[in-house]
């Protein structure tokens, strides 16, 4: 299927204050691929994702989602395909109850109420947040907010899931639940993060950014094992690939993957 290919063609973006956040990025993400976008703080990850969703428009270059270029005119088409979860879930939750927040998207697309209800409940079940449905979003804990924000994106049933630092501020259990959830999402996933262990586990492909450029693009296990490269980009090898700090030998990677393969 070609309609969910995401194509960045020589993208440049400069913030109004002159900061050049994206400096010529070209890459193609295929249908059903799961891609981790990694890089130090300020590498341009968030900016790239905002360009993809049309929150920002590139100064130069073109982004295509399937056959459709991302422009002001095509925004509503693009946004029906892409579900984007923000770095800070507070920005995303603005309704009075979690239920209404998750229902916000489907209602905007004129879906009738019984179907909205079905979608909302399904999305809440997926993230394990059904019990939160009548709570006020701003009174939830960090992890609960994240779950609600992701449900709000899932209820739109997007073809492409785009997430900015989804595991930031999650406790280990919530992080694990989120990772299992992401593994179950079979469409295209694009995830910007510092959490290299997560990338190793759920993304087959990794794109490394530095100062708004692609430094490296390839298979996750290879890239994440390249200590020198990661060092240059302000990153550190995932724990799972480091030698065991206690006995000094053997890698956790194999056993980790086995342990979560269920």
């Amino acid at each position, binding site marked *: 299927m070609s309609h969910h290919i995401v194509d960045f063609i020589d993208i440049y973006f400069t913030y109004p204050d002159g900061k050049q956040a994206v400096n010529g990025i070209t890459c193609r993400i295929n249908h059903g691929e799961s891609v981790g976008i990694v890089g130090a703080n300020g590498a341009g990850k968030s900016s790239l994702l905002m360009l993809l969703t049309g929150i920002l428009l590139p100064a130069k270059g073109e982004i295509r989602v399937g056959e459709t270029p991302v422009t002001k005119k095509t925004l509503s088409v693009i946004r029906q395909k892409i579900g984007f979860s923000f770095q800070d879930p507070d*920005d995303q939750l603005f309704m009075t109850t979690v239920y209404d927040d998750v229902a916000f998207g489907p209602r905007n697309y004129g879906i009738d109420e019984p179907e909205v209800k079905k979608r909302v409940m399904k999305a809440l079940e997926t993230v394990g947040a059904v019990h939160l449905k009548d709570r006020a979003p701003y009174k939830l804990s960090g992890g609960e907010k994240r779950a609600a924000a992701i449900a709000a994106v899932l209820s739109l049933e997007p073809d492409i899931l785009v997430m900015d630092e989804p595991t930031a501020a999650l406790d280990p259990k919530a992080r694990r639940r989120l990772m299992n959830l992401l593994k179950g999402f079979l469409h295209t996933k694009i995830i910007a993060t510092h959490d290299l262990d997560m990338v190793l586990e759920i993304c087959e492909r990794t794109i490394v950014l530095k100062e708004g450029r692609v430094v490296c693009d390839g298979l996750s296990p290879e890239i994440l094992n390249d200590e020198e490269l990661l060092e240059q980009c302000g990153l550190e090898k995932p724990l799972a690939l480091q030698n065991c700090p206690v006995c000094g030998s053997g890698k956790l990677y194999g056993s980790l993957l086995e342990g979560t393969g269920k």
Partner: protein
Amino acid sequence: MIVMSNIIKSLYNIRMLDELAEKRTFIHNIHPLIKVLTTCVYLTVTVSFDKYELSGLLPLIFYPVVMITLAEIPMIPILKRMLVVIPLIIGIGIFNPLFDHKPMVVLPWIQISGGWISFFSIMFKGGFTILAALILIATTGMTRIASALRMIRVPRLFVLQLLLTYRYISVLMEEAGRTWNAYMLRAPGQKSVNPKAWGPLAGQMLMRTYDRAQRVYQAMGLRGFNGEYNPGDVKKVTVKDILYFTCWAAFFAVSRYFNLPALIGEVVTGVMK
């Protein structure tokens, strides 16, 4: 300055009104459109009273009292919110007693200047107006009010502005609360913000609020928001709703055309004779 932080705290909790709107009492179940219309009629009647007509205004307090009771709205938070605006109303009315010394008879044995009468009439009108608005929000919720306004063909841009301004206020208050906390944590022993820090602090807060408001708006756009919010649970106007409106409208009309306190007074004195 302790007071200041209390005010911020109570404003910080501004979304409480939205939470109240999720209750399910008789009043909450009235159709939003009907409640908006009732509020409009109430406000029109309230402000239409002449500035010296203090006693005729009094029966109008019946509406907020009944609404607060039936909708189970807690008094304290509502009064606190009113407290914030009351200085403003006092500011508007305070010059009347200073300039208007025309003597006026209130009751046969009390004489007060016209200035004081009109001052109190402004206070009551202002108080009733704000109370009615708060009650409408607390029983209906801003998003449902917005969709009701759309039903009576209020322009989309205006409704959108209203909705976003309302959101913006809560965002602003939250940022104010955060900035305040961040400052206080690093300024132990200080009871208030050092006047020197007010400028940078306020500037920072506005920038942050602007950024956040922008992101919230973007998040709405990403999920297909184009200015027309559909609250999902749109109901039809029923006989019960129309009855509700008719009762209140009748009461407002009677209060407007007859001076009820005076009438009752006459009846009572008539009986006593």
